[in-house]
């Protein structure tokens, strides 16, 4: 329990206006984009690394749980303060410290919103590729701590490929600088990789240096509609095996077709199952040639293929894709959203077997995902007020995850484990690897104050 004395101490560190404690405000920091919720006892908004250090030193001395949070948009339960205590929110550390075009790098504070960062880079003709679909609200600290992906990662890779340096505050309050400003750096262990994707369990990221790319000058969006999943899956495999690497290949099933009404003919939508959204980017000449090649591949099995005429039309297709998650969520009380990744030549098999599972447990299922890199978000629609239905939904999801793993895939492509997937961890990860992770945790955070209760299920003696 946090006492009044604790709150006074926190206020001494950050200033009165940067500590919240009313029960109403605690409700507003009890959730993220999952169905998990738990109220913290205080929310603290540090404004620099020194303040984070002060908060952690105090929390460590007094064994108070600290859950880091940025935009609170994650879909794994990572920012839920499941043990109460303090939510350390970085949204007031939102300065873009530097954008250096000559070095192709940028330095940001953890509370910068990804969308704002992208906009600032675009003005300079620069580009940071990871584009999780929560870009409008997610913050850079979370992007790194969750090692975020997104559609563009097919061609450009995930966040870890762009982290050059980090400043991290450790559980005992020490501030450590890792990595540097250069793309090549072979000095000792790659320690900043330890914190990239650590889900806030090893330290709190207070500054981030990122590698950037020059912004591409042209892109084209190709829309292909398919009569069945197998044809779409085979087309993806054919594209990947071809000579063009698109920047994005996204998959949506007919649950989301309403969002495409008015953009594509009803006659085609009514009798189809899958839409692939494909983007190629680069120089105008290469984009034109690559578009032709993709069209050729799609034409053999797609019912309808078209190229967006202009950026405005393309934007409408991508908005329809982005809306998938909220669209499905708003149709039912509870959704169970998964994040498996499968090898790309097993996509059609994965969808077929998962659909059989859904039929077996009699639950509705929708598929969307970054199919170009094999990363899928199967969503089972349920209602957790109906216990029996919800149990069937969970069993179905268990089976889908087992399917993905048996096909050579992984438990989480980009969302992380958090609370949402920890019950599968033992099945999906080598026990020795889990043991190493726990040892690292014990070394860096011996009192388990940082984001406790995440990633692995606690055994009774923990």
């Amino acid at each position, binding site marked *: 329990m946090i006492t009044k004395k604790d709150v006074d101490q926190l206020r001494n560190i950050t200033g009165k206006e940067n500590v919240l404690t009313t029960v109403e405000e605690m409700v507003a920091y009890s959730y993220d*984009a999952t169905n998990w919720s738990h109220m913290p006892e205080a929310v603290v908004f540090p404004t620099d690394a020194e303040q984070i250090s002060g908060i952690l030193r105090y929390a460590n001395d007094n064994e108070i749980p600290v859950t880091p949070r940025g935009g609170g948009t994650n879909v794994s339960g990572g920012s839920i303060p499941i043990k109460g205590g303090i939510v350390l929110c970085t949204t007031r550390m939102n300065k873009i410290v530097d954008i250096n075009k000559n070095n192709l790098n940028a330095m940001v504070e953890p509370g910068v919103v990804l969308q704002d960062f992208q906009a600032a880079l675009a003005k300079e003709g620069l580009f940071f590729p990871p584009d999780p679909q*929560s870009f409008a609200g997610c913050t850079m600290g979370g992007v790194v701590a969750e090692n975020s992906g997104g559609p563009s990662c097919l061609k450009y890779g995930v966040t870890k490929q762009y982290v050059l340096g980090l400043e991290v505050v450790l559980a005992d309050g020490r501030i450590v600088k890792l990595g540097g400003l250069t793309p090549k750096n072979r000095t000792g262990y790659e320690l900043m990789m330890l914190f990239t994707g650590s889900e806030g369990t090893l330290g709190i990221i207070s500054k981030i240096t990122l590698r950037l790319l020059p912004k591409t000058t042209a892109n084209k969006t190709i829309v292909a509609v398919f009569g069945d999943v197998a044809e779409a899956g085979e087309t993806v495999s054919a594209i990947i095996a071809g000579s063009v690497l698109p920047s994005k290949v996204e998959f949506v099933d007919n649950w989301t077709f309403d969002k495409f009404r008015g953009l594509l003919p009803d006659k085609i939508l009514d009798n189809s199952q899958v839409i692939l959204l494909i983007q190629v980017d680069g120089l105008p000449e290469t984009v034109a040639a690559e578009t032709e090649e993709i069209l050729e591949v799609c034409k053999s099995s797609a019912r309808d293929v078209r190229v967006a005429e202009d950026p405005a039309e393309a934007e409408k297709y991508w908005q329809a894709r982005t809306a998938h998650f909220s669209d499905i969520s708003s149709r039912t009380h509870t959704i169970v959203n998964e994040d498996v990744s499968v090898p790309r030549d097993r996509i059609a098999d994965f969808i077929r077997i998962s659909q059989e599972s859904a039929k077996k447990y009699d639950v509705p299922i929708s598929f969307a995902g970054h199919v170009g890199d094999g990363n899928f978000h199967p969503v089972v629609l349920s209602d957790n007020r109906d216990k029996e239905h919800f149990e069937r939904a969970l069993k179905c999801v268990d089976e889908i995850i087992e399917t993905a793993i048996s096909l050579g895939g992984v438990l989480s492509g980009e969302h992380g484990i958090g609370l949402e997937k920890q019950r599968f961890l033992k099945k999906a990860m080598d026990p020795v690897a889990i043991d190493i992770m726990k040892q690292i945790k014990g070394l860096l955070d011996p009192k388990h104050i940082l984001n406790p209760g995440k990633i692995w299920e606690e055994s009774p003696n923990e």
Partner: protein
Amino acid sequence: MNSSVKFEQINRFEDDLDKCTKCGFCMSYCPVYQEEKVESSVARGKLMMVRALLDGKLTLTDEMAEQLNKCTLCMTCVQNCPASTQLPAVVTAARADKVKHKGLRFPYNFIYRWLLPRRRLFGYAVRIVSWFQGIFMPKTQGTIRHLSMFLSALGKGRHIPQIAPKFLRQLIPEVNKPPEGVKTTCTVGYFTGCMTDFVFPETGKKIVNFLTKNGVEVIVPRGQGCCGAPVFLGAGDFDTGRKMADSNVRAFRDVDYIITDCATCASAMKDYVKYLADTPEKIREYTEYSEKIKDITEFLVDNLNLPPSAYKVAEEFNGKKVTWHEPCHLGRYLGVKEQPRKILKSLPDIEYIEMPDADRCCGMAGTFSVNFYDLSQKIADKKTDSIDSTRADIVVTDCPGCQIQLIDGITRKQMPQKVLHIMDLFE
């Protein structure tokens, strides 16, 4: 706790609560969140707080009311929500349940329940207060919107326009016929709103003049009162709101169209049926009433379909650069986006410049700007930055509430722009 009894209004909008998937997109659009960066200010946070209220985890404390009041009801979150969650409805309903159970505090109970519904008395009160205006606060040209706001803004340094020496109702007759030689093509009722009546009567005169010149007979019913926006939307007092709605419905019973020059009044009156209709009879009455309401620009462009030659810019504005602020209530509530721009772009005597984010909330939001004046100013600063970037001479809009906010913001920053109602541009 039996929540179904306790939260009668919120329960009506429970579906909207459940639609929210907590994706957090609203964070990037909410003007309040953009300033505060605190979850309780954004739609997602407010919806979860109201959900906690229904689940018995929270109660209707003053803190809860404060959080619910900290929303401009600008609708930007709704417009961009992938699940189309209706935050303003939930917030308004929660405000109503708060009033139902906890009542209204002084001076709001006096102003909303007693003074605002009595138009003439309200006018006297405004007049009396106006005598002291110069003593307490900086003056600018123009007037005030609601008495409550006026009183509360005292001492906060807000630049409030002067109360007009004569109210609109004293300046124009109840029935205004087209001049001789102009054929009467239709008859409309003119809902003047408190602001045009007490603060901007010249705008009202111009509108009547413009309409009659173009063959429209304009009735200004004396029985009309305040639209009720500050009462039922701002404060959540549905009972008083209903009385005000009923007297407006009575006053405009005999006209086919009700013309407004205030987007807030228009959208509030269109919302009578959503919030205040408690019987089948009222649903019918309020629906009929709402169907008659037309914003002035909407009426001119869609109904009268006037030729460009009908719009004669007053000589003093010839050659000026003009930009347009789109009120939330006009664009997002009434869906009137193109009509005012169509008029402005058609005027050969001015240069029209679209400002960046013309539809971004100005931060006025009636009672909001009184309760959270500092926050309201910060939101206004973004708007005045937009205006500044256009280098325009004049900002026009279609809501006297926004006008007050823009005047305050522009004066604070010592910017040169004149703030006008769009209809002020014409002869």
